[in-house]
């Protein structure tokens, strides 16, 4: 169990999410794949925050701000992901009400 293990697990989950987001028609599956990608990034950020230090470790405030910045970033990533999923689900439901479909390939009014 080392940094590389976590980075590769994060990369695998991100790749799965990328594949799902690009290749699926159902907008809800696309949203779920987006959440997978957010989680993969969070794994990477937290692992970095545990293992990697900047080259110059010690600042005037001590080492804490340099060590745990990754976890603080992950908190903000989770916040943004929650905001994004609320809006995404609202948009999917609005499209379903108007057009009776949740397939991204059917919502083509704004194409061209």
């Amino acid at each position, binding site marked *: *169990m080392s*940094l*590389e293990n*976590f*980075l*590769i*697990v994060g*990369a*695998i*989950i991100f*790749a*799965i999410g*990328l594949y*799902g987001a*690009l*290749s*699926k*028609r*159902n907008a809800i*599956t696309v*949203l*779920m*794949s987006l*959440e*997978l990608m957010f*989680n993969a990034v*969070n*794994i990477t950020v*937290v*692992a970095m925050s*545990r*293992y*990697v*230090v*900047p080259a*110059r*470790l*010690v*600042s005037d405030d001590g*080492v*804490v*701000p340099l*060590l*745990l910045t990754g*976890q*603080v970033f992950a*908190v*903000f990533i*989770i*916040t943004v992901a*929650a*905001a994004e*999923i*609320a*809006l995404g*689900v*609202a948009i999917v*439901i*609005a499209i379903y009400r108007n057009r009776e*479909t949740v397939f991204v390939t059917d919502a083509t009014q704004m194409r061209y």
Partner: protein
Amino acid sequence: MTLGGGVESHFATDVAFWVIAASTIIAAIAVVQLRDLFRAAMFLVVCFLGVAAMFVLRRAEFLAVVQILIYVGAISVLIQFAILMTKDVKRGNPYNRLRLPAGIVAVLFLLATSFVAVNTKWNLIDDAIGGSGAGELVRITGETLDAQEVAEVKAEVEETYANTISKVAELLLRDYFLAFEIASVLLLASVIGSLVLVRER
């Protein structure tokens, strides 16, 4: 060198990591591959729980709790509501025309990031304070630390990882306070926005 007690290098922790990693990845594949959307959402919950367990393994206990509260508790319920309200059983969960290019892009991305992750020489914290690389510890001002200062930094690092929750709270409510408040405004804006979007006219 282990931080915050010897738990991290224990054999059982390694086994736990591999079990958690394998089940998280399998659940992620199931999310993308399953035809039944509701089951896919259930596997998404399994995947979120696996990620929370990985946070615990990497000394991010606060994030693990937040992950379970927000992802497992809120986001997955929201997604299941969306699936129930837009149930489209007849057509299932098909692929679009981009399936092959998307697979190629995902595999290329995986190869590239794995290559970078394995081949980069990371500036590891365990090496930096473990003794061998003590000379790497440098102040922001540029001066190198002597042995006693290195020992102090080592104690501080161990204390940081022994109770990350209070340290993260300190950072969130002091150093990143403005960003923290702006995040709450962002959440309020997104809630109002989604209410406006789904309102009956």
